[in-house]
């Protein structure tokens, strides 16, 4: 009897455990249903959107891909041979950019905010949040559509692109929509965001000027020159303020925000050096590049141009002089390659406007904008007097020099229906000798101007078809 009592009581003590023990929650996450209860929650989600932008623009290849695909960069035969699939135009659905998935991940964060913001009372907070979400979504969708599809001007009525997703429904299997329709939705969202968004949301966040800058770029791609001009003017203000020649290098070391309309922040704690590593690493005190400046492009940078020393450096690697790109060298005294991602600058908007003026017939105002830029880049600078096709060519030349090594060139050539024509006779050394390009020409209308969609989506989603040619 004693035995039974003893054993049963011991077991009763040890066996007591209730079902509540099974209700365990994670320590660093909250359930989705609880994520939008207060304004503080919404702020967290808004910053979450920007965190996604950081992953893509700071952490990815967006600052180099457009140059590798075009004629600004040639591979360093002594480098680590990165991005060769893109430099040689050998990509397809199984070897393509991750922008499709990453872009939609960022857009989803904006969509979640837009779906939940309505339950908040009307006011400045609600409107600004909606404006930021619409603008950020348009920013990423614009990047996606110019990567994967034809531009508005080049697209026919039948050319299609991915779907402009506005819902967070996990079960949707979207097909495709027309390129032109997609661009029009971008325009609709950006113009809707414009009155809603604040003039100032702090550094590292979108604001009215940024939305106007995006509209300026969008209208240029759409060929809508009057709208481009008015958006650019709204972004630049009555007197466009450009950083002076002395101040220009500070943009790239994050010492100033003068001339920067929007950038994605990358703090010392974030410590993401991908923008720098995309271009080079320092080995034994020397720069070892993955890609070096194309010889012909290098000749276009003159001594009086402040960009020459800001963007480029000619130095030895393995006993050979090469033209390295040091635009993303880093902040003074800090880790190499860790810089903010400058996405929208006044210089670009000014060039957009200059081109829009010229192509809508106003050579005078186009020339004025061009000379304004030149005054802040060249010393000694002289005003040019050009007109017509020569003026346009000079504007486009300045555009190439200004926007080089920001991942813009390939999309710019695509927009203007130009081929990629690389030199067949120059190589990767500073003197023009060295290993040459394997492939030199991408003709206008080649299907490879539109990057392929990932096979993983094509194979799974029957409604979604691959771009033609792949």
């Amino acid at each position, binding site marked *: 009897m004693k035995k039974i009592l003893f054993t049963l009581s*011991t077991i009763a003590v040890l066996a007591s455990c209730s079902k509540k*023990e099974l209700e365990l929650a994670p320590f660093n996450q909250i359930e989705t249903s609880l*994520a939008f209860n207060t304004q503080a929650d919404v702020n967290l989600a808004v910053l979450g959107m920007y965190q996604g932008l950081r992953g893509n623009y700071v952490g990815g290849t967006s600052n180099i891909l457009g140059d590798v695909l075009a004629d600004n960069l040639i591979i360093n035969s002594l480098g680590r041979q990165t991005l060769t699939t893109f430099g040689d135009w050998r990509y397809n659905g199984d070897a393509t950019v991750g922008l499709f998935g990453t872009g939609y991940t960022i857009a989803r964060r904006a969509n979640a905010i837009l779906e939940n913001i309505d339950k908040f009372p009307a006011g400045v907070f609600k409107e600004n949040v909606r404006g930021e979400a619409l603008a950020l979504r348009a920013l990423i969708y614009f990047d996606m559509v110019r990567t994967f599809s034809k531009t508005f001007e080049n697209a026919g009525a039948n050319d299609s692109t991915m779907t402009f997703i506005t819902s967070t429904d996990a079960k949707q299997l979207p097909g495709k929509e027309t390129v032109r329709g997609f661009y029009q939705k971008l325009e609709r969202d950006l113009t809707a965001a414009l009155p809603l968004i604040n003039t100032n949301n702090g550094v590292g966040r979108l604001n009215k000027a940024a939305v106007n800058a995006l509209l300026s770029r969008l209208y240029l791609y759409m060929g809508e020159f009057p709208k481009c001009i008015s958006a650019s003017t709204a972004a630049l203000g009555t007197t466009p303020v450009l950083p002076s020649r002395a101040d220009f290098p500070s943009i790239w070391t994050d010492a100033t925000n003068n001339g920067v309309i929007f950038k994605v922040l990358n703090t010392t704690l974030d410590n993401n050096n991908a923008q720098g590593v995309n271009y080079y690493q320092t080995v034994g005190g020397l720069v070892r590049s993955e890609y070096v400046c194309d010889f012909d492009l290098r000749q276009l940078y003159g001594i009086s141009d402040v960009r020459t020393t800001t963007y480029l450096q000619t130095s030895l690697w393995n006993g050979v002089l090469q033209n390295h790109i040091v635009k993303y060298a880093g902040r003074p005294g800090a880790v190499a390659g860790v810089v903010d991602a400058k996405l929208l600058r006044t210089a670009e908007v000014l060039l957009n406007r200059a081109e829009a003026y010229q192509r809508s017939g106003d050579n005078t105002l186009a020339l004025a904008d061009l000379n304004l830029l030149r005054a802040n880049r060249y010393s000694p600078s002289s005003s040019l007097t050009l007109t017509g096709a020569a003026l346009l060519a000079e504007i486009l030349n300045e555009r190439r020099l200004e926007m080089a090594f920001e991942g813009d060139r390939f999309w710019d050539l695509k927009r203007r229906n130009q081929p990629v024509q690389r030199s067949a006779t120059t190589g990767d050394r500073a003197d023009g000798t060295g290993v040459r390009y394997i492939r030199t020409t991408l003709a206008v209308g080649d299907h490879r101007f539109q990057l392929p969609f990932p096979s993983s989506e094509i194979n799974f989603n029957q409604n979604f078809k691959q771009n033609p040619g792949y």
Partner: protein
Amino acid sequence: MLFLMLTFAFMQANAQNRTITGKVIDADGKPISGASITARGAKSGSLTDGSGNFKFSVTPDVKVIVISSLGQLNQELRVGAASEYNIRMAPADQSLDEVVVVGYQAFKRKDLNGATSVISSKEIAQRPMQNFTQILQGKAPGLQVISANGQPGAGAFIRIRGTGSINATNEPLIMVDGIAVASTAFSLLNPNDIETITVLKDASSSAIYGSRAANGVIVVTTKNGKPGAPQVRYSFQRGFVTQQELQNVSFMSAREKLQWEFAAGLTNPIIDSMIVNRRGSIFPSNATLATLNDAQRQGLWDLMADRAPSDWRDYYLQPGRTSSHEVSISGATEKMKYYFSLNKFDEDGVLFRSYRNRIGARLNAEYKATNWLTTGVNVSTAYANEFQTRERFNTQAPWTSVFFTNPYEPVFMPNGSYNFTMTGFSSLEGTLRNTQFNNGLSTFATSFLEAKVNKNLTFKSVAALNHVTSMSEIYLQPGSNLAAILGYNEKTDNGSSNFQYVITNTGNYIKTFKSKHNLNVLVGQEFTKLNFYSYSLSARGFPTASVTTLDNAAAAQAASTSRSQWSIISYLSSVGYDYDKRYGVKLSARRDGSSRFGANNRFANFWAASAWWNAKNEKFMDKLDFLSDLKVRASYGTAGNVPGQFYGSLGTYALNVAYNNTPAAVPTQIANPDLTWEKNANWDLGIDFGLFNNRITGTVDYYNRQTNDMLYSQPISQATGFSSILSNVGSLNNKGIEVSLTGEIIRKKDLKWSVNVTYTNNENIVTSLISDNVPSASNTRLVIGKPLNTFFMVRHAGINPANGRNQYYKADGTITETYSLNDQVLLTGKSPLARFFGGLNSNLNYKNFDFSVQFYYTGGNYMYNAMYQNNLADGGNTSVGFRPQYRDANNYWRKPGDIATMPNLTEASQKQNFTTDRFLERGDYVTLRDLMFGYTLPSQLAKSLKLAGLRFYVQGTNLFIGTKFRGIPEVGTVNRDSGTPVQPGVLNLYGYPPTRTITVGVDVKF
């Protein structure tokens, strides 16, 4: 009248009985006294006397007599006309009486009735491996063990009856003394402390382990004292470790490589500068590599080769060694048994600077407090510290550097610093200055209380815990090359604490009714919980490499902690009934609730039913002399598998992200409130048999294992911002045969020789998927009707003899010279899963010498030989061409009509190394896994040295491997830095090389 009748009856009876006589001796010829002789079926008989003689009276109807003796196999003798019989007995397999723990109860090995394999301590003790999972290879049919890599302490991937899951774990549940151990603790468990390892393969034995038992269960029991005088043992081992040589490939020498680079038109900057420096002196003033003549070029090659080391592996690798000391004391008295051991195992790995040292102690004790109350405790602690080399697909890793450093490069620059080589980084310098030291401490403690309430009913309570803490210190030292490249120096200290405890209460009722009906009922309840905590701290700006603590750093960089937990509540029961140990059935059931699922689906039930027939005692066995043992069994049951994610069913926003150093929230997971267990339904049919007095024994099992409601990342459109939701969709099937045959070929006094062969054949098929033909990893697909992860790639069609270009098959079978990913096809029949595997073991004992050998073979799987592709530059493309090349690269096309294996070296379009089935190779191999020679000192000699026993031995592991694969076909992880592979064995990318060890050792018993 009555007297007459009685006398007559008596005389009748007497006239019909007869007396048989004889002698009973044992295998060595010595007489056995006290052996019993009975008529079959009778209860009593007679016994042999001191000289082994017996006299036995039998009635005429008796046909068979049974002779039995303790420690000997029962013998049955057909009684014929003769009246004198000499009977020689054979020793019984003592191991059949061994007690093993299966399903929360202890059984004698001979009473196990399911598809189970028992591995005894003898088979795994004294093997020079720090992780016991690696020693299990080839020890049981159906148990497939793939070693992860050759790092000291590395574990192995274990599969029992095939691969049953895609996203959830495929590893079996491993219980050590009643608790499921974290895999990080396997290398902290001393293999010499293990008494038995029982592998539970079918549902009848594993279903009672319930929700985590879908992949089988391995039950490990540690040693305890045996009755008799205390045994004190000391053993010492010293091993010599080398890297297993790559098979079927060799690298070009320095001269060959330079000549090949020249033929490929590669501009080697070092050669160029050497020519420039000699212009005007040895060479003409405008000389270039192309304008020199052959002799001058050869002269340059010689100059380069002389500056280089003869073999870079002398620097990247080091001679490995193992050294192990162990002391153990064990014994038992009436009231108590105990086992104490102390062990130290130090190992230097084969890679530069790699080592792992482990020290541990264990005390297992059991005390019979009263005649109804027993208590016991098993406690062990182990500590290990190691230096971990980088293991990546770049030159920071020493092993990768062997494949990336050209044979003509010198080790040191003229100024004495390390040569950064053409790769730009010296992994020698990196291993010295970018260090990673890890250590781990594991504590196991199991304590129990057992109360025998009456002679049938026992209650037992077990509380077990396992606490593993590990720590890493990763130091990017100031002054190192990597610090200069990155622009900062940094130290990261991180660590984790993994604490798991289990409380199990069981009640066991065992009763025999009417001496033939045996009933065994078990009822129990269990609670398991795991708490995981980890931290990571880093700081930058160290003044000098000689200080390592973070308080010396100028700037703190990151501080982070995280925590997670899971728990399981279980109720279990089983009922077993057998009739006269001849026919038996068993039913078991278990109900588990887990915290990993949403409230709707928390609990699930698992059950199994099995039946067995032990034909040994049947009447018809008399007629079949040659058949000494026969058991037929069948079982069917269910088991479960849980997802790896602790909180997988919730839809969540993660808060552990920031933008501009301000907190942010990002969507992380889509909710699936229906998420539930992965279910396995297994059935098994098996036969155990023995022939010729158990001279030949064997087991054959046929099994079929079906996985339903597979935990699978169901793809969704990437347009949703996610690419998958964890769901239960799809099913998988594994079926196959396991065969094991053991023969005691020679069984004499001084010479014993036995051979054991195992063979397992497993067929794996994906039976349903949510969407067919999905990519699973690079170059593999999941296709309904085919094995898991079947390869999917472009087919190579050789080199065109006319122009030396690569040719590929288009999807429709025509040949083309253009590579397109649209021509990828499913390569039916080629998957990384092995189709068959097994072992051949043999033991030979001659007087005091013992010899054992173990072969392991496997095949039917294919592997993508990336390590071969990466050092074979097609057409000399610069990214691959500046790596060392295999000699096969010299077989390139030179002129029209050549049949070559490599394309022409100069055409620009051929300078790309595409992924095709050219590098897909069969992974079949046979390896001499273990070889051991031992000599035990004769007992007289040992006694004169005042020892109870002394044994010397020499042992070798992985001494020989036979394969057609180009490289080493036994691979598990891709490499450590890229994490656990989708499928172990898909490809190998410079993981720690597997090793070969020769060990000498001595075992002393006092």
